[in-house]
């Protein structure tokens, strides 16, 4: 049993068939980088993995428990899947610290003191303990995204999902966010990462998945993916990327 399993997943938006019979198993501690052209279904794949979108066929399982079953305890399961968004989505009316403590205290019933203690530790991990009392609009994009990562980590997720988390950042701020993700990967976090940062994919990814038209068309370790991919789609994609 793998940690996160997609089993024959189909996703439609109305008539549009966006994910087509996706089979994908992600092992614990694996970093799976998802790349592919715009509209190929990368975001949808991630959003289905914490049920921000419903799937129409197949099953998604986390640690053997179905995420997609109609009777799944979705609020419980979502706590185990952290998600970081391209647009940060920090809560603007809460300080960095409060952004992080909100879910643990409200959802888990963690004591306030304890949640704050943990939040300070997490902020220190992402290099932002000095900004604990800042509001999001007092932080740079890179700082906001690091707080968003800390916020997701505060629920002790088993898997972290990253959807183009550096795409909205000024180039000089990309590095600090990728650095935090690299630390996480080295710490053994299981991750699915949609990104256009090919250096990051190559260095941090254990496995690269190329999506096209709702299919997974290539699935290989970085070494093989970048040097000797099997599919024609991967070859043309790489020739355009590099």
């Amino acid at each position: 049993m793998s940690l996160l399993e997609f089993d024959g997943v189909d996703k439609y938006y109305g008539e549009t068939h966006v994910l087509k019979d996706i089979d994908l198993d992600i092992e614990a501690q694996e970093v799976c980088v998802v790349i592919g052209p715009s509209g190929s279904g990368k975001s949808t794949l991630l959003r289905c993995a914490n049920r921000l979108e419903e799937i129409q066929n197949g099953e998604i399982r986390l640690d053997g428990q179905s995420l997609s079953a109609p009777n799944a305890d979705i609020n419980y399961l979502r706590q185990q899947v952290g998600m970081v968004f391209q647009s940060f989505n920090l809560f603007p009316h809460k300080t960095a610290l409060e952004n992080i403590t909100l879910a643990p205290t409200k959802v888990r019933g963690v004591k306030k003191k304890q949640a704050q203690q943990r939040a300070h530790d997490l902020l220190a991990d992402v290099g932002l303990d000095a900004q604990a009392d800042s509001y999001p609009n007092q932080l740079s994009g890179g700082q906001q995204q690091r707080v968003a990562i800390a916020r997701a980590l505060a629920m002790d997720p088993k898997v972290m999902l990253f959807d183009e988390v550096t795409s909205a950042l000024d180039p000089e701020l990309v590095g600090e966010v990728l650095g935090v993700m690299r630390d996480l990967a080295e710490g053994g976090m299981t991750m699915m990462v949609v990104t256009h940062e090919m250096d990051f994919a190559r260095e941090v990814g254990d496995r690269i998945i190329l999506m096209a038209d709702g299919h997974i068309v290539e699935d290989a370790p970085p070494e093989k993916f970048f040097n000797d991919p099997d599919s024609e789609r991967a070859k043309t994609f790489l020739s355009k990327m590099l």
Partner: protein
Amino acid sequence: MAESYSGESTSERVDESVLNDRTLKWIGVAISSLFTLGIFALVGYIIATKVNFELLQTIFPRFVDAYLLVLRIFLMGSVLSVVAGVFVGFGRVSSTFPTGAVARGYVEFFRGTPLLFQIIVIYFGIPALWSGTFPIQDWEIPAAIIALTLNHAAYVGEAIRGGIGAVPEGQMEAARSLGMSYTQGMREVVLPQAWRNALAAIGNDQVILIKDTSLLTVIAVPEIISVFRSVNSATFDPWTPIVLTAVAYLGITLPLGFVVRYLEDRSDWGGDSQ
């Protein structure tokens, strides 16, 4: 340096020196100074020549009573219309069938007919539905509060709907992705932001509510305009009661402005630097 405001045609930018920033600024200063001087002169003239200070002292207690009555009606109507407006706003954003449609119909009716008409319906219409004597004594005050509440709940509801609509979808998604329920996401994340977004519009509406109490003169509520009319018809002196009328209304609207600004500052969340 100097921007030309005669922006019709660039070939004719002869006169940059006339309508530049500085000239405009000085025109503004001149006009507003003249205006202020004029107003002070007029008010001074009126107070010196048209206001009867003996009468002013005599009628002052009646204006105090009217002021306190309007203040009470406003406070009741304000609290009730904001609370009811929150429900109307929730109804307006609801996607379940009857709720959304009912809220919509409510808003269309109360914004689509004059408040004066609504006051008349409640004050005259409702007691006429009873076969015997209507059980509520001094119905004009409860009727006034009910009419103002129902009417302004529609406007507050629309303000709240707009406030909720202006919260980006990603906020609820982020809350849900952390394991919060829909209700928790609404309460902890969406509504505080919606409230902030709606505050200015709600504040404007509540100022209008204060001024709308003047309509209650038609159902014989002894509010500020009623007192003005009674003094004026007894003495034929317009300016003495006019001065007190203005002071009485501003004595409610100006403090309300401070309250709204305080609430806005309190939800500033680190400023709007981004």
